[in-house]
């Protein structure tokens, strides 16, 4: 099943649920009308939260840059011996 079909099915199911809530008045109508808005806003907030948390926890590796420089030095020594031009522009 294509992914978009899955998402559409999910949205249809949610809409059907929402419409049945409207019909059966389990929750007062005034609230039910606003539910889709709440849903979208919550989704947006969740997204922003995930971005913020991810940003804070973004793994960094400053020591890798140092190791890389060492690797480069080692490589240059070997390559120069073999007559390969390793000067930077």
């Amino acid at each position, binding site marked *: 099943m294509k992914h978009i079909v899955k998402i559409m099915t999910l949205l249809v199911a949610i809409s059907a649920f929402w419409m049945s809530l409207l019909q059966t008045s389990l929750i007062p109508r005034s609230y039910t009308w606003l539910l889709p808005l709440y849903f979208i806003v919550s989704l947006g907030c969740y997204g922003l939260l995930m971005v913020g948390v*991810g940003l804070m926890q*973004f*793994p960094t590796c400053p020591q*890798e*840059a140092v190791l*890389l420089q060492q690797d480069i030095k080692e490589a240059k020594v070997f*390559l120069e011996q073999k*007559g390969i*031009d*390793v000067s930077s522009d």
Partner: protein
Amino acid sequence: MEEQRKHNDGKNKYSIIVPTYNERLNIALLVYLVFKHLPDVDFEMIIVDDGSPDGTQDVVKKLQEVYGEDRILLRARPKKLGLGTAYVHGLKHCSGNYVVIMDADLSHHPKYLPSFIKKQMETGASIVTGTRYVKGGGVHGWTLMRKLTSRGANVLAQTLLWPGVSDLTGSFRLYRKSVLEDVISSCVSKGYVFQMEMIVRASRKGYHIEEVPITFVDRVYGTSKLGGSEIVEYLKGLMYLLVTT
């Protein structure tokens, strides 16, 4: 699995495809590091150079003298023809049963190659992809802005596509050769959206995908080829993937 064993007695050969454009210095450093970190592995490097004007191909020819023409294959093209087609071109010349794709600019460090191989052998996965976004992985040299856009892009993609991998735009990956051939034939995007399309299509097709943490140090030499209206391209790519995969 059976086919593989009959073909090469259960021994694996890894073909490493490296597309290059103006990577005269980086390619020599990369080749040295690959050979350093894969001492007991049967592998070959396939360098697909798109007519670099800076002498990259001359350097590769010198490297062939040092390491052997059977280990370093130069399969050049006349001009810049794009990443996706570079992989397709490289694939035609692969003699291995596994293919690794990686960047030439040392942002992908060859020291992770053994961990890709190990992960694949342990799990029998069809694809092992490197991820920068989990513990044990990471980036260096990224501004806050770049991290923000990266993270935002990732959250959006995860929400829309449910891809099953944490790093969608990464291009440090190990593929079973037959799987790469299958997936690449159904991909049409360009640039880094191409990398996303590859992994999403593979995921949709039900291939077993594993991840290993990798560190990504922003390029040391040369100019980065990123630039321009990335965000628009990215969003267009996401929409395309949402609807067609």
